[in-house]
């Protein structure tokens, strides 16, 4: 098994089997886009 949270620690989860930069880079920018869109709509 790889480094999912099922068997690993938090740091192992964040590492994403060495692909952390790519995986979290995708999700972080998506989350940022959503936050910006909601923020501009609220104004």
């Amino acid at each position, binding site marked *: 098994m790889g480094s999912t949270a*099922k068997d690993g620690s938090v740091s192992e989860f964040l590492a994403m*089997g060495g692909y952390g930069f790519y995986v979290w*880079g995708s999700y972080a*920018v998506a989350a940022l886009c959503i936050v910006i869109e909601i923020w501009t*709509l609220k104004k």
Partner: protein
Amino acid sequence: MNSTLFHYASPQIFFPVAGKLIPWFSVLAGLLAIAGLYVAFFVAPTDATQGEAYRIIFIHVPAAWMSMFIYVVMAGWAAAGLALNTRLSGMMASALAPTGAMFTFIALWSGALWGKPTWGTYWVWDARLTSELVLLFLYFGFIALKGAIPDPVRADRAGAVLALLGVVNVPIIYYSVQWWNTLHQGASVSLTRSPSMAATMLLGMLLMALAAWMYSIATTLTRLRNIILERERDAEWVRLQRTAA
């Protein structure tokens, strides 16, 4: 013609309806995203060939689906506006464009970050990637064109023509992986054959796709209300709305 549809095509009638719907779609979007992310990171197994890198799929595929789907809906409203001269149609198309552009950007960005570990490059000028980039420019063009024309009626018409011309790009994106030799893999999910992935992976993707749908409806309706208030600011009912708020 259906008179109920035309009844709701009046901005004044639609404004409070949209206001009531937005909280429901927002809550659904949040709940589905939480469930989807849980399945994506804690339930779906590690991919045999791509390891954990494949988990980008849960954001990439729903974003790519939405980017194309929103464009088709936008072009549909634009066409309805041209054909029926309903005021709300052009506003609906305007309200959809920024959310569509956002999902297109997320699809391109997550695709680049997925391409690097799996293909060894962030970007290639192949059919799928290039046509998706063209989609982003079509959204930008649509938004810029409408913004550049001060008269809303003419802006709606010009925007509608651009949206309808651009819709030809959507099937090109979708079928690009079949029509051309491309680095991008074929469709993982199709209506005609069973999916080529684990059931939990598919579940995570569908939950995230549904969340993206609900999110898009909520943001589009919110933007539509803003547009209605701006365009109808001289109307009596908007002034009453302002004083009531």
